[in-house]
């Protein structure tokens, strides 16, 4: 599954791909069970609170992250499409019951899972809309804090890959 060969992607989009030495069943569990999801959703020392998790189209998907310095990130949203072990689509642009939302960070993410060799492939396509509102958040220094958290994580983890 080579993606986007020759196809130009929108500069606002991200496509992230990984091959896992684990079956799709395990990958799906990590995404569909909130108790598992919260363990990897944000970088330590940040913690994730899954405030709502209703795994069906139009069902709530609401995460709340908290940092050690008192920083928080509240991310209500909803699922748009749920195909067990193969496809999960969610957005911050709508909350439960398809209610329109004006998020601080607008996005829709399409997660796809396919078999590959002994394991599986994970592809996340993250699309961003009119992101003018994000500038406000940028001014508040959110991304500085967030990127610091990521850097700390990367420094502390010498992940063999």
């Amino acid at each position: 599954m080579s993606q986007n060969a020759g196809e130009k992607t929108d500069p606002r989009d991200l496509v992230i791909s990984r091959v896992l030495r684990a079956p799709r069943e395990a990958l799906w569990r990590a995404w569909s069970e909130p108790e598992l999801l919260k363990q990897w959703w944000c970088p330590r020392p940040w913690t994730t609170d899954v405030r709502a998790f209703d795994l069906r189209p139009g069902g709530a998907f609401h995460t709340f992250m908290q940092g050690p310095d008192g920083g928080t990130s509240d991310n209500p949203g909803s699922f748009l499409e749920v195909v067990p072990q193969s496809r999960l689509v969610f957005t911050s642009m709508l909350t439960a019951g398809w209610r329109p939302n004006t998020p601080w960070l607008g996005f829709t993410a399409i997660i796809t899972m396919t078999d590959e060799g002994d394991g599986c492939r994970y592809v996340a396509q993250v699309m961003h809309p009119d992101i003018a509102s994000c500038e406000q958040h940028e001014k508040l220094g959110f991304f500085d804090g967030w990127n610091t958290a990521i850097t700390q994580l990367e420094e502390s983890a010498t992940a063999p890959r």
Partner: protein
Amino acid sequence: MANYSVSVSEVFHALADPTRCAIVSSLGYGAQTVTALAAPFDMALPSFMKHLTVLERSGLIRTSKLGRTRTCELVPETLSRAEKWIAGQRAMWEARSDRMVEFVERLHQQEQPHVTKRRRKD
């Protein structure tokens, strides 16, 4: 004069078009006159000017007129701001995906003790 209150979304809109992307790349080598800049493009000048207008409005380029010659140049600060934003998002998702992969592989190993034994001593 340069528009400093430009929104990041306008920058992305401006860059979403292949012609405008190519114009920006071309200006990366330095300021050019509109005539020189338009030469490689198989496009009527009015259409080309429309692309320049979109780019100028987004704050990615600025133009100045001296006599009859209009010159275009890149505003590097604008590009780096948009790039920075998307780079921040990419960094977050890349790191999240790495944590997820590690987590899922560990989960799988814990559920498959025999496989783990065969593959690793501990």
